[in-house]
């Protein structure tokens, strides 16, 4: 990650400025995190209206107080199969580049306050999830939380359209 690690700590203000907060959540057995600043709201799963001819991880749209918001299945986005959503599943509404979208996850876990310097780069190992989706690793105790890149996850969520139009 391009986190500024070489800025000298000149006081408590600088330390505070470097502390960032993340929301962590669970998909399957894994813990993931996203920047709390991107999160607009967290709500329980409700049935979506399915949009025709979309990628399978695109679950459809929801009415969020009058705004139509697209919802994506994060597990399916990782290529790990569709989530069988129940009322106990959670949708995290995030804002990316002026657009709102929702991510279906299993459960929200925690709010993490992490010093930017403690975020580790993702090791280049073979893993089921596309490396581009991962932005870093946050060590928490003796386990770890994977920091996601929202931009890369949802930058071009219209490939299904492109494929059909071709």
């Amino acid at each position, binding site marked *: 990650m391009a986190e500024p690690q070489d800025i000298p700590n000149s006081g408590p203000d600088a330390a505070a400025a470097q502390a960032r907060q993340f929301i962590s959540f669970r998909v399957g057995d894994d813990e993931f995190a996203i920047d709390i600043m991107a999160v607009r709201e967290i709500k329980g799963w409700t049935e979506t209206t*399915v*949009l*025709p*001819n979309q990628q399978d991880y695109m679950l*459809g749209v929801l*009415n969020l107080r*009058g*705004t*139509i918001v697209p919802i994506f299945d994060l597990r399916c986005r990782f290529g790990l199969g569709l989530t069988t959503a129940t009322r106990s599943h959670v949708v995290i509404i995030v804002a990316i580049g002026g657009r709102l979208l929702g991510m279906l996850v299993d459960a929200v876990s925690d709010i993490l306050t992490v010093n930017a310097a403690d975020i580790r780069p993702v090791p280049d190992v073979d893993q089921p999830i596309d490396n581009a989706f991962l932005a870093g690793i946050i060590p928490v105790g003796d386990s770890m939380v994977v920091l996601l890149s929202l931009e890369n996850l949802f930058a071009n*969520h219209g490939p299904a359209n492109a494929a059909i139009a071709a």
Partner: protein
Amino acid sequence: MSTPSFGSDELAQFRRTFFEECTELLADLEERLGALVAYSSDIEGLNAIFRAVHSVKAGAGAFGYTVLVGFAHRFEALLDRLRDGKAELDERTLTALVAAADVFSALVDLARQGETPADDFGADVAEELSALLDGETRLAAAPSAATCVPTQAASEDRTYRIVFRPNAELFRHANEPLYLIRELKTLGSLAIDCDLARLPPFEAFSPEDSYLGWTMTLRSSSSPADIAEVFEFVDDECELVIEDIATAPTEPEVTAPPPLQEVAKAEATDAPSEGKPSEIKTSDTKTTGKTGSISSIRVDLYRVDRLVNMVGELVIAQAMLAQQFIESRKQDDPGALQGFEHLAGLTRELQECVMAIRMQPVKSVFSRMPRLVRDVGHKTGKDVRLEMSGEQTEVDKTVIEELADPLTHMIRNAVDHGIEDAATRLAAGKPAGGVIRLSAQHAGSNILIHVEDDGAGLDRDRLLAKAIDKGIVPASAKLSAEEIDELIFSPGFSTAAAVTDVSGRGVGMDVVRRNVQALGGRVQVMSTPGKGTRFTLVIPLTLAVLDGMVVAVGWEKYILPLTSIVESFRPGRGQIRVVPGGGEVVSIRGEFVRLIHLARVFGVSEAVADPCQGLVVLIELANGSKLGVVVDELIGQQQVVIKSLQDNYDPVPGISGATILGNGRVALIVDIEELTRLYDRSVRIAEATRLPVAANA
């Protein structure tokens, strides 16, 4: 706001306001200009045009757009002569005025974009204006002296004493005495004496008030009316006395000028004896008062849009609440139920009121058309009259903006292709001059716009020949007259024998149809050979709400636009035929209509597959062809608030938008024009995936 100097923000704000006003003024100018007829004396129209040019000039001067001011000055001078009757409004002058209006508005545009126009910009038009001005000065000198100022020859130098004492509020109405004085100076030699008597002590000084007064002596050949005109825009905000002291020395009021304090009284009592200038003044204030009497306020469009959105939410919230109540309480509380009905009524009414704010008369688009007809008529050498009706018919602002292009195109076509030349018309026993009728009217939740000409009608033989030539229809095709007429909407179709400057630029009625479709509307053509052609546009009044039919397909609900639905029916077994290639058609009243399964196009599972078990909704597409859409069942008719999917997502083929139903769930609005295309593709894909299997078998 007590600082007399303005920050750049404020200046930018003023500039924005200035250009907003320019847009309005220019639109008014254009409209008035369009109404001018050669050799008529439409003084009110000329006055209005003059005022528009002058207001723009005044603002432009304040912001330092010198080229614009210079041009406006000449434009104004010619208008002034016309309204004073010193010049005649002949064809040449009218053409020059129209050209000048174009240059003028182009200059405003350049100024708006912050660009400096080239030195020779509009030079030819400016020269023509000057030529007209010079020519008419010479020609009109004698008669004007006789009619306007009977006692003096116009060319003789006279001396005027001018007392000008603005009211304190002068600056607040964006007037600047300096400009007036400078303009006076252009009339002749000017001696100025400033009167500081009203200047208060410094503690009481308010920087926004005007305190100074001036007594000026002007030697000029101008008439008193010319001088009064310099003050035309401030004459109700000042004390003003204009006296001809050199040529009328015997009048007692003039030889013994009243002290300054009494000037106001003197002016009031002397007004009748002052003659020409005061007459001009009163008639001017009258016309200004009349045109300014429409009471309206200017509101940022964003605020209106927000209001429309909020009310849309309210309608949905109200529907949800009512539905939940009915489901939970099983209607055992008649009082509450009545309350809900009342709330529903109020909400609906509120929504209509808010929608009405966005509604504007189509006049703003229609008013550009007389000018267009004249221009195109000129270029093609045809004598064409435009008759308009229903200009006050109101439609949503966004719709109006989108109407301009299609209408311009159709009117241009009507003049260029529709109306025959004079000789042909006379030979056919018609009057030499053609007539184009443009009308608007409401029809339910749509607006109907007709463009009708009394020309030759569509030349069907040539249309068909051209279509076959271009490969649009096969040579063996047997088409009905209506089907041939429809061909003009085919892409890349232009029948003009020669490509003219006016039409035939390769875009044609197909673009019109596409524009109209984008508005959710339709365009139809009706032609009678030898009698003329009539185009009818049917366009929804607003893009914010839609009358829809809610249909169920599997678990999903979709909205079909009600305007395109003809009927719905459950076909019998014998009505369905499978055509070679796998497609299905349904026969209804002897007509075979193609069937499209919404479930297949949208990939919905658990939907009714057999049309005889579900329903066929018969739809008429914009091109007039019909389509049978197979759905599970009809839920009901409903007015829905249109929401964009594209705020947060990419466009979805076959879906034009979304709405929120009473239960809070999103329902998708079907883009029926896209359905056939999507269906063809899904059939192709299905075939492509089936073929290898067939090969294996």
